[in-house]
């Protein structure tokens, strides 16, 4: 049952924000569009992942490739949100990509090892972006309710998933040595938070108005 949840239900949940985004796409500004295309990218990688799992092919290489691209998407989203630190964020993306390569070829080299260091650092930086956004927003006087701003929803989606995911990715390689049932439980907890992230994305897209 948990395997079905992880392999099929969670990826299917990605359709919730994608369909909402597709309907509301004409109201999107550049920032929300980046978030939408990030989800499209996530959908493609999930599809490849399901395909690999169905054929019993090791998917750790996929994780190593997708991590820097995923991070670049999120970084460009926040670069558009912040409107400042453009160069800094570009530098962060470049340095992180370089670190992913070093991690893949040197630090965590090997076919069966997931890039736990780079994933944990990725989540850590994204959580930092989200908190910076909160800090930036807290000093601005808003005329509208918090819930009416679509960026707020996308931001909390990233914050909830990435901050919860840090611990998950730190120990992910240790967990691979645990029993299949243990892995199922841990991944299902992580995927439940992923579903929450998708729902928050959908709410954010839904809040976009002309």
């Amino acid at each position, binding site marked *: 049952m948990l395997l079905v949840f992880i392999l099929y239900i969670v990826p299917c949940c990605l359709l919730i924000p994608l369909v909402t985004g597709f309907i509301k796409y004409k109201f999107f500004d550049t920032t929300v569009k980046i978030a939408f295309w990030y989800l499209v990218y996530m959908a493609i990688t999930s599809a490849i992942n399901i395909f690999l799992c169905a054929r019993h092919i090791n998917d750790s290489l996929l994780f190593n490739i997708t991590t820097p691209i995923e991070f670049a998407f999120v970084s460009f989203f926040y670069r558009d949100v912040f409107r400042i630190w453009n160069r800094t964020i570009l530098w962060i993306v470049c340095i992180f990509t370089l670190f992913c390569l070093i991690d893949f070829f040197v630090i965590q080299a090997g076919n069966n090892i997931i890039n736990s260091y780079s994933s944990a650092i990725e989540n850590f930086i994204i959580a930092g972006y989200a908190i910076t956004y909160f800090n930036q927003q807290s000093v601005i006087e808003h005329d509208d309710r*918090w819930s009416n701003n679509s960026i707020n929803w996308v931001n909390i989606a990233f914050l909830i998933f990435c901050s919860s995911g840090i611990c998950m990715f730190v120990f992910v390689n240790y967990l691979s040595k*645990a*029993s299949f049932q243990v892995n199922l439980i841990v991944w299902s907890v992580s995927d439940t938070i992923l579903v929450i992230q998708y729902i928050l994305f959908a709410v954010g897209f839904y809040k976009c108005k002309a």
Partner: protein
Amino acid sequence: MQSVTDNIFVVVLLAIGGTFVMVVSFILIYIRNQNKMLLQRQQLQHSKIAHQKDLLEAIITSQETERKRIGQDLHDDVGTALSGLRLTIELLQSQPAQDNDKYVKLSKDIIDNVIKDVRNISHSLSPPALTYYGLNAALEEKCSIINQSGNLNIKLVNNAQALLQDISQPVSLALYRVLEELINNTIKHAYASAVNINFTQIDDGILLIDYTDNGKGVNIGTTHKGMGLQNIESRLTVINATYEINTAEGAGFNVNIKCPLNS
């Protein structure tokens, strides 16, 4: 190895769950605070708008009252006197020539009265002393007229002579009207016997007007802000002046007005 990984599994689950709960709590508290701040800002904005509306209403009402008063003065004094003059001239035509002098004198008296009434109306609209001699002189004139009645003694002390010399016409007119309103309030409501008005220069270019009467005072907390006070506030707001009222029942009435004159 199995037991170690099982322990890690518990630790990971606890860490994920704990972080999730903490982050969600942080977000909920943040959202609640943001909405609370928004609500406070909206309430403040509404009260500001309501206050501005009250002030505008006070200005319009006072303008209408003033127009009504001028209309009444013109009708009762000037109109009546001119009707009397018309009747006198008609009588003059029908009377024998030897009575002409009597009617001419009567007509002249009526014309003098009309001139006096018109002057009074025009003075009340724009005191000439204010235009020609400044705020202090206009107030001294006003005070001496009131002091002559014997019911109220107004003492005017000017310790800001230099500052008052450079005061602009709109500001001096506004301050004159404010003090006139305060004196009217004292006469009408305070049952006071003495009023002190002090002009002092405090900081650079800031005039402090200290107005005090020894009347019955009011309880500001329970008394509704009347049209007169709203008028005062609107006039002071226009010239960027601030005011502070110190009063209590039986303790007289005091108001300190701080007016920047540099701008």
